[in-house]
C-alpha cells in the first residue's frame, strides 16, 4: 500500500525531471546533430531527425579555418590566465583569510567591485594601451586581460576555501617548524586542494567562453575559439551544417571537460553560501 502510493509520484517526478532536462539540453543536442547533416538536410522543413550522417561539414570547417590554431590559442590563453590568477590569488587569499586586518574586508569588496566595471566602459583605453604595449593580438595580452577579469572572483573563492581550513592545523605546522612558504605549500594547499581545483576549473571555463575581449583585442595571431566561431557566422552565406559543426568543435572540449569535472566544480561555485 505504502509502496504503491509512493511509486506513482516517483514516476511522475522522473518524467518531469527528464522532460525538463531534455528540453534544456535540446539546443545542444540539435547543434551536434546538425553538424552531421548535409546543408540540404540542415535546412529541410520540417527538420529531419533521421538522415544520412556525413562528415562533410567538418571537412569544410577544417578546410576553411585552422581549428587547431584557435584551440591551441584558447587553451594556452586559458591556462596562462588561470595559472597567473592562482599565483596572485593564493597569497592574497591566504593573507586575507588568516591575517585579516582592518582593511581586509574593504580590500575584498573593492576587488569584487572592480569586477562590476563593464568591460565595454574601458574598452577604448584598454585597446589603446594594448596597442602601444604591443600586446594587441597576442596570447599574453588576452591572457592578462582574462587574468585580471577573473582575479577578483578567484580571490573570493579561494578566500572562502581557506577560511574553512582549521587554523590549528596551520599552527601545528608552525609548531613543527614550517616557515611561511612551507606552511602554504605543504600544509595549506594540499588541504584546500579540492577548492583550488574547482577555482581553477571555473576560471578555465570563464576564459574559454570569454567573447568580448577575444573579439576586440585579437584578430588572427592570437584569436581564440570565440573568433573561430565568429568567422562562420557572417549573415551572408550562412551554412547551418557548417556552423553547427564549427560550434560543436568550439564547445565540445569545454563541455566534456565540464561534464567530467562538474562534481568538483560545484564545490567551489557556492562561494561559501552552502555550509
Amino acid at each position: 500500500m505504502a509502496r504503491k502510493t509512493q511509486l506513482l509520484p516517483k514516476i511522475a517526478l522522473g518524467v518531469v525531471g527528464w522532460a525538463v532536462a531534455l528540453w534544456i539540453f535540446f539546443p545542444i543536442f540539435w547543434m551536434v546533430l546538425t553538424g552531421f547533416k548535409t546543408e540540404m538536410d540542415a535546412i529541410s522543413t520540417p527538420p529531419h531527425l533521421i538522415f544520412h550522417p556525413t562528415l562533410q561539414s567538418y571537412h569544410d570547417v577544417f578546410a576553411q579555418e585552422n581549428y587547431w590554431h584557435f584551440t591551441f590559442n584558447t587553451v594556452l590563453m586559458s591556462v596562462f590566465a588561470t595559472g597567473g590568477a592562482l599565483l596572485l590569488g593564493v597569497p592574497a587569499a591566504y593573507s586575507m583569510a588568516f591575517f585579516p586586518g582592518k582593511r581586509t574586508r574593504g580590500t575584498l569588496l573593492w576587488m569584487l567591485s572592480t569586477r562590476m566595471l563593464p568591460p565595454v566602459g574601458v574598452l577604448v583605453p584598454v585597446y589603446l594601451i594594448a596597442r602601444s604595449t604591443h600586446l594587441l593580438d597576442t596570447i599574453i595580452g588576452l591572457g592578462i586581460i582574462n587574468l585580471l577579469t577573473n582575479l577578483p572572483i578567484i580571490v573570493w573563492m579561494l578566500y572562502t576555501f581557506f577560511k574553512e581550513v582549521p587554523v590549528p592545523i596551520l599552527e601545528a605546522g608552525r609548531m613543527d617548524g614550517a616557515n611561511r612558504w612551507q606552511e602554504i605549500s605543504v600544509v595549506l594547499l594540499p588541504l584546500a586542494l579540492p577548492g583550488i581545483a574547482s577555482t581553477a576549473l571555473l576560471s578555465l571555463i570563464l576564459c574559454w567562453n570569454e567573447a568580448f575581449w577575444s573579439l576586440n583585442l585579437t584578430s588572427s595571431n592570437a584569436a581564440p575559439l570565440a573568433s573561430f566561431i565568429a568567422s562562420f557566422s557572417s549573415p551572408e552565406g550562412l551554412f547551418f551544417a557548417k556552423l553547427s559543426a564549427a560550434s560543436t568543435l568550439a564547445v565540445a572540449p569545454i563541455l566534456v571537460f565540464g561534464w567530467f569535472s562538474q562534481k568538483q566544480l560545484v564545490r567551489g561555485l557556492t562561494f561559501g553560501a552552502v555550509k
Partner: protein
Amino acid sequence: MAKVELRDIRKTYHAEEIIKGVSLDINDEEFVVFVGPSGCGKSTLLRMIAGLEEISAGDLLIDGKRVNDIEPAKRGLAMVFQSYALYPHMNVYQNMEFGLKLAGMPEPERRQKINDVAKTLQLDSYLKHKPGQLSGGQRQRVAIGRAIVRNPKVFLFDEPLSNLDAALRGQMRVELATLHRRLKATTIYVTHDQVEAMTMADKIVVLQKGVVEQVGSPLELYHHPRNLFVARFIGSPPMNFLPVTVRSVTENGIVVALDHGAPVTVPVLPGETASAEAMTLGIRPEHIVLDPQGEITGTIRMVERLGALTLLHVALPDGALIIVQTDGDHGGEVDAPVGLRLLAENCHLFDARGMALTKLVRHRLAG
C-alpha cells in the same frame, strides 16, 4: 629538561588587556595545569608560551633564556591541540615525521624514532592510516605521538581531552599521567575540567580574567583556597557558602553565628577581624554530617544517589540550598527534616573582599 619562567607576562588585544601580568615559575619535570572558566585567558597564556601569540609585555624564559622573539619551532616545545590538528592529507607516519623532516633529521633516525614512539602509543599498526580513518582516541594518540617524537623540552596541551567521551577521557588521563612519569618532561596543560586538574597536576594555576588567582598543589587548592573564586571553582560538588556574622575572636579561632543556628568556632587566624563583621563561611559537602543535634536544621529537597555516595540538597530556613554528602546507604527522603553539624576544623572563612582567612592548622597533604 627545562624550566619555564613567566615574568609579568601581558597580552593586549585592541587596547584591552586579556592577560594582566602573570608571573610564574614552572620547574623542570613539573606537570602544571592551567585551569579556569572559559575566557579566563588560560589558552591564550599557553599559546603565548608556544609562540603562537605575541607577548605584548613581559618576559618568557625557557631554561633562563628569553624566548619572546623566537619562532615557535625553535623554542623546543611541542603542542597537542584541542582539535588534534593532525594533517588530514598525511598518514600517521607522515604526521609524526613532518616536524622531524623540517628539522633536518636524517631518514634512518626518523624512522627509528617514529617506530619507537608508535610502539609505545600502540599506533604501530596504524602508521599507514590517514587521520580520517582513526577513532577519536587514536587521533589523540597520534597528536601526542607527533609531540613526543620531537623530543621537546616542554609539552603543551590545550584541552586535549575535551573532544573525547567520558570513558575514554578517564583512560587518557591515566595514560597521560603515566607518560609524564616516564618521559619526565616539563608539561603545561590547559583545561577547564577541574577533575583533570586535580588528578594530573603537580601544580595547579587557577586563572580568572587574565589574573592568577592561586598557584599550588591540588590538595593545597582544595583545602586552602586563597579566595572565594578558587574555593568555588575547585571541588565537585562545589563548596557550600553561608553568610555569617562574627561573634567574637578567640585564640581557637573566630566564633561566627549563622543566620539560623548555633554559633561555630572556625579555627583561623583572626588578623584584623572585628566583632559583628559580616563574613562568608565555606564548607564542602563532605564536611557536613547529619546530626539531629547539629547547629542547623533544614529540609531535604532532592536526593542524588551516586551509588557509593548520596548527595542531599538541603534547604535551610532562609531558603538557601546546600549540598550535603552522605554515604550511599543513607535513606534520606525528600521533604524530610534533617539536622546538620558542620565540621568546624574544615570550615573556611572569607572576608568581605572574598579573601580566605589563614587556617590555624594546615592540611597534612596540602604541602
